[in-house]
């Protein structure tokens, strides 16, 4: 649920010297995105996307650095980042498998797809494999109901899935990965 927040008032946040918002990211955002919006906050979503693209997730320190970079309060950034499902405030696997569970996929047997993923990876939805390679997620409608059941593996949509096709997609992602 996007609206649940964690009480982090007393949490100790580890800081490291190497910045998460690198000079390259700052440069890219300053050139491409800041001129597009009337306020600096407008560039917040693109900035978070860029930082997550670089590090795979959004550590606490990164959110604070984003706030400093855009001249916002850390609370503004955390408020925004914690709302959206695609921003990862905890580490995730190298590859994410999003299995669609909305109505068209559910009535077209999304369960066999999810079961295949769970059996293959040995994890439940929301978990990451021990080697940190895969995170399995259930997701609401991926917008391809005509080819149900579907799943998104990283940035690639796989359509008209069967259990075999799903396993092959996972294997391929694992091979072409880092």
């Amino acid at each position, binding site marked *: *649920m*996007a*609206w649940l927040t964690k009480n982090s008032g007393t949490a100790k946040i580890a800081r490291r010297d190497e910045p998460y918002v690198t000079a390259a990211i700052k440069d890219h955002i300053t050139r491409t995105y800041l001129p*597009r*919006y*009337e*306020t600096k*906050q*407008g*560039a*917040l*979503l*693109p900035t*978070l*996307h860029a930082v997550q693209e670089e590090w795979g997730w959004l550590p606490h320190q990164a959110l604070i650095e984003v706030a400093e970079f855009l001249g916002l309060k850390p609370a*503004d950034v955390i*408020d*925004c980042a914690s*709302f*959206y*499902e*695609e*921003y990862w405030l905890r580490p995730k696997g190298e590859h994410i498998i*999003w299995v669609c*569970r*909305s*109505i*068209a996929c*559910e*009535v*077209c047997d999304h369960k066999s797809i999810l079961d295949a993923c769970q059996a293959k990876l040995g994890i439940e939805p929301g978990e990451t494999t021990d080697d940190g390679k895969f995170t399995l997620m259930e*997701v*609401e*409608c*991926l*917008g*391809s*109901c*005509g*080819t*149900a059941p579907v799943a*998104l593996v990283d*940035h*690639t*949509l796989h359509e008209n899935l069967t259990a075999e096709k799903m396993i092959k997609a996972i294997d391929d992602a694992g091979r072409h990965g880092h």
Partner: protein
Amino acid sequence: MPWTPKTTTPVLTKRIPCAPHGDPKNRHIVRYDEYVRTGGYEGLRKALTMAPDAVVAEVKDCGLRGRGGAGFPTGLKWTFLPKHDPANPQPRYLAINADESEPGTFKDRLLLDFDPHLLLEGIAIACYACRLTKAYIYIRGEYHHQAMVLEEAIKEAYAHGVFGPQGLLSGASNAGGEKWSVECHVHRGAGAYICGEETALLESLEGKRGWPRIKPPFPAVKGLFGRPTIINNVETLAHLPSIIENGKQWFLNQGVQGSAGTKLFGVSGHVNKPGLFEFDLGIPLSTLVNQYCGGMRHGKKFKGAIAGGISTGILGPDQFDAEMDFGIGPKYNVLGLGTACPTIFDEDTDMVVVARNLARFFKHESCGQCTPCREGSGWLYQLMTRIERGEGRTKDLDLALEISTSMGAMPGTTICGLADGNNWAVRTIINKYRDEFESRVRPTFVAVTVGAG
């Protein structure tokens, strides 16, 4: 009388092969050169020879209604904008809603995937007509590929004088009386259904959490960054080039009274050939399924269908012949046409499972701003889960109906329409398949022997 199409050549899918006019296998991304070769940007060129107000009037008179779900007349929406003052130019925005996340809906994806310039031409026409300076295409985060296709198409459009300071087909004299230029950008969302609600979309564009705003003020007066803003759906804008090119009468001749034009229909679920089709509004659902989708899968019987995105509610077993136009709502007891992307269920479908699935969706996507929706959607999901497991009581059914007739239905109890979509989805399923639910719940009152005292 069997239904016959009025429009025999596709309009929106002119360059995207769709059955029955073409083979979906032949789809490919239409780049700028091919787009222009096949008559692209002619609508924009014609619009530039018309006064901006004349373009607005044309769109208003053609009866184009928004294709995003609510069906609000597009031209009327445009007229809510304050008048542009050339002496004191202010930024004015167009936000394009490409946050297609309604379960069952996959129509905008097709346009973004294969014919991005059609959308860009529509954007250019809308910005010229309404005197808007900047357009943001708000695309959902999961559409990685589509965002890339769009970015490339926008680059081409900038290079060929559609957008940018040298834009709106540079050099061409326009009838607007002043040089006009439009910026166009892609803004990627990050996975939140609620950002398809127009004011939540604006919040998200401003870099905030997607919480809908209280209206008024309406976005046309005070929208993105406090400026006048128009929000239109992808498909709505994709209609503009052909309307301007062919005139309002041409558009009015398509479809049916009150629902002019063609529409993309995305059929999913238990049919033999699910997919995307373009037909005149008013096509009966049974014709769509039997004639164009190869009939029900495995020859099973029709049991029901989500009318057009789950917020609209469900069409019952006796409503297979429902005409898919904007009049569908009051006629068949659903919320409305929605996105016109029906999901079909066959006789083996467990409607309690369907209700649970829909309830889970709304619970998951409720933004949490208004209590009736945040709590009510959770309650509904719990009740549906309990009934599905066979642990429900009769009073659970009554409670579910009570929640789904009150939560957000009373004006002013929630800010946006999400709770109402939840209501319609759950209420229409329970009402139209009441016996299925009743057979799954245990009676609340158990007969007991009363000992005489």
